[in-house]
């Protein structure tokens, strides 16, 4: 059960009533101006209270909202997109879609993790969890982008890489690991955007980038809050506490220097205005591409190495004074 879906029901009722009053007013030429004004003020107040300051756990649910714009919505909004299928060896993975695209006046290669909107779609797309042949298709297209000099744009939205038997048999570890070395070496700008759930290594496989954007209420985490809670407290119900501890929100991650930019969402979440949200994200990506276009391949590679080289928090002055010696 999604806590945001539950909580926004009251707001949706309020908005339905406003719409109803408006149509009554229009149809019967009654002046309901002040009644509507009161309800609108109320709706705004409710929305502010609900969404003005969300807990990390609420933001996890926002990131998983069933009406949140999906990878496929972004692909549809591109100026042009031609999907390229398959890893050439084993299969085509609908959970990780890639192709040639035009975005903000540039030709790019785009890679997007895509969840389904309903159960049927989710089964076809394996709930957005890529298999090894999905990551191998991604690697193929990363190399294509690098060779053709096309910038690489990735959209991240996955609970994690597929944890099934076949995926282990086909070496999921190597598939993700190979994406990471490939991204470390591509000679073109790489812009990654977390648009929903950034679930662990399966997300990072598309996330080693020159510039990383997060949609405001997306989350990006070393482990799912449920999994983390189960490990730490043997109790998945403490996921809300784990969500808070993991520092998985966009503002936390910006402070840690793990992401570079946050794209704000409409009050109440991206799904309240999907079209605008998608446009805002694509504009942010376009801006990043403009900046990166000024750099030579070698400059990009050096800057990318330097960026990840300094990631981490540690002491470098000998043993810290934690614990006894």
């Amino acid at each position, binding site marked *: 059960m999604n806590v945001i879906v539950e909580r926004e029901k009251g707001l949706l009722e309020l908005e339905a009533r406003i719409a109803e009053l408006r149509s009554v007013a229009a149809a019967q030429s009654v002046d309901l101006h002040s009644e509507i004004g009161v309800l609108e003020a109320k709706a705004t107040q409710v929305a502010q209270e609900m969404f003005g300051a969300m807990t990390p756990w609420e933001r996890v649910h926002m990131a998983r909202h069933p009406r949140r714009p999906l990878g496929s919505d972004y692909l549809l909004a591109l100026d042009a997109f031609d999907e390229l299928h398959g890893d050439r060896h084993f299969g085509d993975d609908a959970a990780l879609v890639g192709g040639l695209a035009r975005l903000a006046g540039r030709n790019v290669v785009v890679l997007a993790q895509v969840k389904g909107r309903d159960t049927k779609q989710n089964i076809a797309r394996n709930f957005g969890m890529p298999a090894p042949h999905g990551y191998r298709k991604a690697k193929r297209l990363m190399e294509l982008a690098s060779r053709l000099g096309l910038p690489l744009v990735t959209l991240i939205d996955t609970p994690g*890489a597929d*944890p*099934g*038997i076949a*995926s*282990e*048999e*086909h*070496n*999921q*570890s*190597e598939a*993700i*690991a*190979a994406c*990471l*070395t490939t991204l*470390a*070496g591509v000679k073109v700008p790489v812009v990654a955007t977390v648009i929903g759930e950034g679930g*662990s*290594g399966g997300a*990072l*496989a598309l*996330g*080693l980038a020159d510039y990383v954007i997060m949609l405001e209420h997306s989350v*990006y*985490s*070393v*482990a799912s809050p449920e*999994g*983390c809670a189960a*490990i*730490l*407290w043997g109790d998945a119900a403490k996921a809300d506490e784990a969500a808070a*501890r*993991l*520092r*998985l929100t966009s503002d936390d*991650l910006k402070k*840690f220097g*793990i992401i570079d930019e946050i794209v704000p969402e409409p009050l109440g979440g991206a799904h309240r205005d999907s079209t605008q949200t998608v446009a805002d994200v694509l504009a942010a990506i376009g801006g990043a591409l403009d900046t990166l276009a000024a750099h030579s391949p070698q400059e990009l590679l050096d800057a*990318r*190495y330097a960026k*990840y*080289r300094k*990631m*981490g*928090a*540690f*002491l*470098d*002055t*000998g*043993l*810290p004074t*934690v*614990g*006894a*010696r």
Partner: protein
Amino acid sequence: MPIPDWMRLPRANAPQERDATLWERCPKCSEMLYRKDLEQHLWVCSRCGHHFRMHASDRVHMLLDGEFQEIAAQVAPSDPLHWTDKRTYPAKIAADRIKSGLTEAIVVGTGTLAGQRLALGIMDFSFRGGTMGSVVGERLVRLFEHALHHHFPVVLFTASGGARMEEGMLALMQMAKSSAAVKRFTDAGNFYAVVLTDPTTGGVSASFAFQADVIIAESKASIGFAGRRVIEQTIRQRLPENFQTAEFLLEKGQIDMVVSRHELRDTLARLLGYVAPATVPA
């Protein structure tokens, strides 16, 4: 041989199951083994061949001709998330230091193996389950950069439960950080071999563990991306016994060889010989 700091940590003084007794029970065949014999046999059960998890310092002694020049020993964990669950992160670190006698889940440095100089990194499951946090990432990168500069081959021993939760996304980013270092190192024509030991999973398996030129696994080691329990919960059925074992991975074409611990040093010596014909004085 000057003993590095981390070997001087008071491991032996701590009350710990391994150090507390003269005897060890083999978890596979239940044989009671005399600890001194076990050490002599490289922590391999003389009855059933079970490979015990091995301490990093024991591995160093097993592999190197003599001295181990540790690198980045002073790089130590901080607490960027001010993490606390049942205990604080610093408290966990402090406890594991005493338990393991290690300053972190990896030690890195240089030495010679059968007369051939190499950069060596050894993870140890007894420190935070071999999880990768910022220190593991930083020590790894310093090792690869040092080896790149000196054109040494790199040999890593992995043992890891994955990324370290207590450092959140900073831990996950060590996958990217170490991958970038591996890429630079191997692109320059240097040799990188890995030995996967029990267990190697998650963020470590999905980054530097599977980026090596040659991938060896110790007999029967458990290796995979997702944990066994996670998969069993997902598919709601029990997995076959050999699933995610070294032998299973060999059959599936994922690794180059499965090697018994007794053969490991000779195997590595031969592999280094193929890529580093010039030997240094031992």
